[in-house]
């Protein structure tokens, strides 16, 4: 397949036009998406107009930037001015934002061509994309299986080679788990590294936008394009953005890789998974890294902590969807409170309602100290766990998931779905960067390796992931089923 950086180089060298690349991506989406349902909205006119602008800029001798002419899919919770933004929900089914998210503006400022908006679990609540109010998205490696979630549409679109680059968001694993399921690279940056302005909030203290890409080099370029302080987001941090691409490494000599004892213990019972990850750690060692064992004693409280803090914040964040100013309104008699109730009853799906109720309960008077305050204390302890671990290692390598992609409908019980985030939640609670990079296959289904680093050390993390990617070449070993079906159409023919 063609990676984003390869497209950019070809566009800047005048070898290919942005318009032709956009058309290929759109053709590929037209051919493949009926099987996947990765997109909620495709924007061909907007994409072609943008591509023509890029071509005109290149023709003038300008450099449109890191992502010149690169087709990009954007998770449908980033506001895009003039383009419907649903957040996977009935309540925003017809919502057209008057403004764009900062990351969308930054992508476009770097020459990206946005081709559409991708499906997701409603309000980013879910791990399978089955909680979309519209339709489930399917996994390009096996369309009977889920692509993961909540950024499942973005993962599926990149995994199926519709686009080399997509934007996702990660609250407790919503980039890393679908990246693992769809065999793509997915990066959750440090909390505060990337602006949240214009990104529809689920849990404000955890949400981060990040790239989901064909390879690590693309992830580095996209992160460089979107990272940095935004005066519109008070929680974005004013720390200089490095040139991540120059941090990409080919060997890992001198790198201490932390292996998490508790996590190894929990996968020990699954021979295939244990073998796959043991192989991945072996590759890191062969590249020159020295493995060290580290402990995250509070990781076992991660899920419980997360399922107090995230619902608490969401119960407040989602209060604004009331039918007064925008989105769905159900007003068939009664007073304004009746309108609120009917609108929200009709507009939100079951999982969203479940979390609003959980969060409302956790914040209510008499329970706040026992739940929310204690959860915040555990969060502090979890941060301390990572701080201690990073005195002994430079990065952590660990499982991204506890299983390969599962079949649609396999996790009907909400708690079994929540458990999918077991390995990804601790990093979210600690606010540190973490990513998933393709690590291998179990029964032909992809599985990712998670790499985590201290806050704002994305360059280090990407460097390790790049060396691992080059050594294993996992993505190029196999073709996704959907890609094989669609041979001969569009960009896929260039793979």
């Amino acid at each position, binding site marked *: 397949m063609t990676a984003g950086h390869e497209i950019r180089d070809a566009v800047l060298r005048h070898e290919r036009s942005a318009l032709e690349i956009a058309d290929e991506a759109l053709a590929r989406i037209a051919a493949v998406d009926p099987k996947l349902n990765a997109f909620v909205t495709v924007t061909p006119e907007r994409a072609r107009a943008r591509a023509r602008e890029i071509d005109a800029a290149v023709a003038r001798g300008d450099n449109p930037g890191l992502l010149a002419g690169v087709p990009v899919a954007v998770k449908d919770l980033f506001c895009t001015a003039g383009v419907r933004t649903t957040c996977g929900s009935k309540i925003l089914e017809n919502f057209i934002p008057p403004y764009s*998210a900062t990351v969308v503006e930054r992508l476009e400022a770097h020459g990206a061509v946005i081709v559409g908006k991708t499906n997701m679990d409603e309000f980013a609540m879910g791990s399978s994309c089955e909680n979309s109010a519209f339709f489930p998205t399917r996994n390009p490696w096996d369309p009977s299986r889920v692509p993961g979630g909540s950024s499942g549409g973005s993962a599926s679109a990149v995994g199926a080679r519709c686009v080399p680059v997509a934007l996702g968001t990660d609250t407790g694993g919503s980039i890393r788990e679908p990246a693992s399921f769809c065999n793509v690279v997915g990066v959750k940056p440090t909390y505060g590294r990337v602006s949240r302005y214009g990104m529809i909030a689920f849990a404000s203290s955890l949400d981060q936008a990040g790239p989901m890409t064909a390879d690590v080099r693309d992830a580095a370029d996209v992160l460089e394009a979107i990272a940095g302080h935004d005066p519109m987001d008070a929680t974005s941090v004013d720390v200089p953005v490095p040139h991540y691409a120059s941090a990409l490494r080919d060997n890992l000599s001198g790198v201490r890789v932390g292996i998490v004892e508790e996590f190894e213990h929990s996968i020990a019972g699954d021979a295939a998974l244990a073998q796959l990850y043991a192989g991945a750690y072996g590759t890191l060692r062969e590249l020159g890294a020295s493995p060290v064992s580290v402990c995250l004693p509070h990781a076992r409280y991660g899920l419980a902590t997360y399922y107090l803090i995230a619902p608490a914040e969401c119960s407040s964040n989602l209060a604004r969807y009331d039918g007064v100013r925008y989105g769905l309104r159900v007003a068939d008699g009664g007073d304004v409170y009746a309108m609120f109730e009917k609108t929200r009853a009709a507009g939100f799906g079951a999982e969203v309602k479940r979390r609003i109720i959980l969060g409302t309960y956790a*914040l209510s*008077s008499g329970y706040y100290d026992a739940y929310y305050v204690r959860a915040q204390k555990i969060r502090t302890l979890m941060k301390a766990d990572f701080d201690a671990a990073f005195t002994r290692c430079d990065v952590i390598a660990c499982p991204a998931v506890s299983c390969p992609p599962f079949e649609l409908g396999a996790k009907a019980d909400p708690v079994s779905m929540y458990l999918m985030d077991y390995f990804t939640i601790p990093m979210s609670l600690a606010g540190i960067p973490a990513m998933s990079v393709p690590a291998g296959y179990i029964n032909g289904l992809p599985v990712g390796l998670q790499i985590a680093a201290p806050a704002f050390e994305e360059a280090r993390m990407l460097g390790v992931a790049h060396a691992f990617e080059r050594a294993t070449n996992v993505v190029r070993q196999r073709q996704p089923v959907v890609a094989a079906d669609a041979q001969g159409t569009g960009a896929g023919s260039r793979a």
Partner: protein
Amino acid sequence: MINEEIGAAQRAEFETVIGLEVHVELLTRSKMFCGCRNEFGSPPNTNVCPVCLGMPGSLPVVNRRAVEFLCKTGLALGCDVAPFSKFDRKNYFYPDMPKNYQISQYDMPLTHGGAIALPSGKRVGLTRIHLEEDTGKNIHGGATIAQSQYTLVDYNRAGVPLMEIVSEPEISSPEEAEAYLAELKAVLSYLGVSDVKMHEGSLRCDANVSIRPAGSGELGTKTEVKNLNSFRSVGRAIGYEIARMRESAQAGERIVQETRGWDEARGVTLSMRSKEFAHDYRYFPDPDLVPLTIDSALLERWRTELPELPSAKRERYISTLGLSAYDAELLAADRASAEYFEAVAEFSKSPKEAANWLAGDVRRSLQKHGIELTDTPMKPGQLAALIAMVKEGAVSGKAAKEVCDVLVAGGGDPKAIVAERGLAQTSDASAIGAFVDQAIAANAESVAAYRGGKEKAFEFLVGQVMRVSRGKANVDVARALLKARLG
């Protein structure tokens, strides 16, 4: 004023405990958490953006100027400014609130303590001052909510910076509550942090009222009185509440903790909601905002920028400028009057005369023309010039009143006005003699009375001479001539 019934309640064995919660809109250029203009009276929904409309994905950013205004208020009132505070979300559903939560400060307000010193000398302690955002405004289609087919919402006010000042329950009468508000208003106007217009809602007040047996240390059950639209309605509503509570207490009834609304037209408070329906606001720290830190160097800089405050001005007006306590209080009540007065005093070198004019004739003329001191075209230098003319004898006190009224209405050079209207004072004996003759001729009875020994009639006749002269006659000359003629 407070009716008799209430006066009786205060004399009885109960004492009143009042605490005030005052909301003040800050006079910043932009809103609390976005760049929209903070402006009263714009066409509906014109000062709005994704942030103050609570659009999906929008985020708040703190207006540092609002923080500065609050901290300066705190410094002026002797509060402790917290070096570290935070914002919390107060969650409840209401259509004028775009996010269905209000960003406020719950357990870590920007200031603690402090006090407001009343002109009486009493100090009313402050509990806290915190920063929050205002809501929009609901405009109902009908006369009341119940009669409305629809409600429109104007979000221009949504997100306007709001400072909440909470007093300790240390106010003990309706009059004291009004004095507290007047003093607070004066301080805020001096600081320039708010335009403190109660009728435009930039200063709003809720009163917590309770009664207890005199001398008791415990607080009685309180009611919270809302919908108070003027200082006077604050006083009246509290007075009504005290009387109502006292009646209940004497009838052996239980006082219910509730929110009551003041009905200005009927002069009563009515129950709005009782505690059974109290909201659980589910406060929690706003994860969209980082904690607020105020460093001590900045705080010290703000302290040096504070203007002279009303209590200090009153003190100086009395002790240094020789003003009466009444004039000092009146002139120091707001920054504009104080600045005007000080300018007139400075130009005329006669602070007492300046005060007399401003507290007397200027005030009456302003009322007559229905304008504020800030609106009059009369410049302080013009009033000072008039005062100087009186002193020099160029114009009589009586004629000067007429000139003053002209100045208040239209401004101008007092000398020109005097000349134009022929009001220059004359000491010319022949001219004044003619006025004296006219007065004597027209007031035969008074002349006879005076000659018959009634001294008082003389003053009346002096007045008549001045009237006939339209105030132009030098009163001392007139007096001498009159005495001589009647002699």
